[in-house]
């Protein structure tokens, strides 16, 4: 399994590849460029910000989409749809709720999962909301604390070992549910339940402690 990328703030120091003693740069998601929020500039229709956004997030979007969409041509279409969503929904982005990376990741997942549903001929299920309906600003303090990498990693570490293992198999190794069943020998229902309840538990941990919607959902 891939090792975790440890977040280290700039106050920490390391011996870098060159032997120089330097502060580590934050490896988590960033929120601004040049002192101004990149997505705010995108929302204003600034082409240079969009170009920067594409350069910065196309690999992430492609990576996420490819997990769900195997066909290369279809995956490219989904990536393009994701960025169209991003241009449309940038004005609703709220940096106090999600990092750029999380926001872009959310849009990519939505598009990819919707595509998968359509491909699996399950038209009855309502599609996930379009990106332009996304409004983080309206979520207020109940939504989520900012998902910096360190916070996510700490929350994951608190999950029960058996749940954490399935999360890593699914999100890190990219295993499908049947593959996890084959790998772990667990029944499909158990895998699904652990993933679902684990997700809820993580959500609860990532929510601000003072949020009125912070139920402690037991993990089983």
């Amino acid at each position, binding site marked *: 399994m891939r090792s975790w990328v440890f977040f280290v*703030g*700039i106050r920490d120091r390391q011996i*870098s*590849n*060159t*032997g*120089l003693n*330097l*502060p580590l*740069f*934050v490896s988590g998601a960033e929120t601004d*460029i*040049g*002192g101004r929020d990149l997505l705010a*500039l995108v929302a*204003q*229709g*600034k*082409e*240079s910000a*969009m*170009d920067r956004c594409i*350069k910065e997030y*196309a690999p992430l979007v*492609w*990576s*996420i989409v490819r997990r*769900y969409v195997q066909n*290369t041509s279809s995956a*490219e279409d989904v990536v393009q749809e994701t*960025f169209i969503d991003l*241009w*449309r929904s940038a004005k609703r982005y709220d940096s106090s*709720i*999600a990092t750029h*990376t*999380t926001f872009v*990741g*959310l849009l*990519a*997942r939505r598009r990819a999962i919707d595509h998968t549903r359509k491909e699996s001929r*399950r038209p*009855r*299920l*309502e599609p996930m909301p379009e990106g332009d309906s*996304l409004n983080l600003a309206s979520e207020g303090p109940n939504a*989520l604390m900012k*998902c910096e*990498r360190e916070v996510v990693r700490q929350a994951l570490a608190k999950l029960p070992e058996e749940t954490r293992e399935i999360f890593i198999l699914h*999100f*890190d190794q990219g295993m499908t549910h049947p593959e996890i069943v084959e790998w772990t020998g667990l029944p499909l229902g158990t895998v*699904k339940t652990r*993933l*679902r309840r684990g*997700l*809820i538990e*993580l*959500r609860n941990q*990532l*929510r601000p402690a003072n949020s009125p919607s912070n139920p402690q959902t037991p993990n089983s």
Partner: protein
Amino acid sequence: MTDQEIISRFEELDAGRILGDLDTGEMDEWEELARDPRCQSDLALELTAAALEAEFQDTNKIELPPGLLEELEKGTADFVVEKPSKKVEETVGEIPLWRKILSDKDTAWAIAALFAILFVAQTFVSDPSTSTPGPPSTQVSPEEASKTLVAEAKDLIRAPFEGGGDYKGMSGEVVWSDERQEGYMSLTNLPVNDPKSKQYQLWIVDPTRDEKPVDGGVFDIGLAEGTTVIPIRNPLVIRDPKAFVITLEQPGGVVVSKQEIVVAAANS
């Protein structure tokens, strides 16, 4: 079922919806419960899944399909309100424009001509005696502007660069003035870079700002010998720089450096 049991069941199904693993029966159940006013989808669940998804992606190793970036750039056409201007370049980073120019073989001659014109122009207008505090005129060469800064700045910071690893042979220094928000790097024996492959990027470590180093701009080294003076392009106000770090990054630079190749550092 009690209200709480209904809400909990919906929440679990909603997590399944977000994870994309609902079976047909569960889809029916989710749809029915979704119509119940007691049941509300929680965006935070989806944000959690997205944060996890992003956390595990190693985007450094991702190779995009050929042409995808160009297609994505074309896709912005309907949403662009403002084309890049000098102001926007300074705010967002002027590198994309440079990258576009440098990647265009047909305009290579134009770049050479531009530099030639600037070189000729600077010989006529660079007069240190006329310099005033503040950012230097674009008609003054970085070398001259640096000298002026050193001569005039009352709060001048000078720090030598120390190369590391493959760059131990380099030398140089950085000069900086908080008051004037102006600074220059003088770099010697830094290897010439191919802007289409890699570019140098400066980072300014200012603990008074926040934990993230400030992007000091990307630059290229075009001379194999001699000293190159590079102006520092700080988009944010620098109050108390503690270090200046040069990394080697992808063309156009990066927003957050992973310090994979640290070229040199200067501690003030």
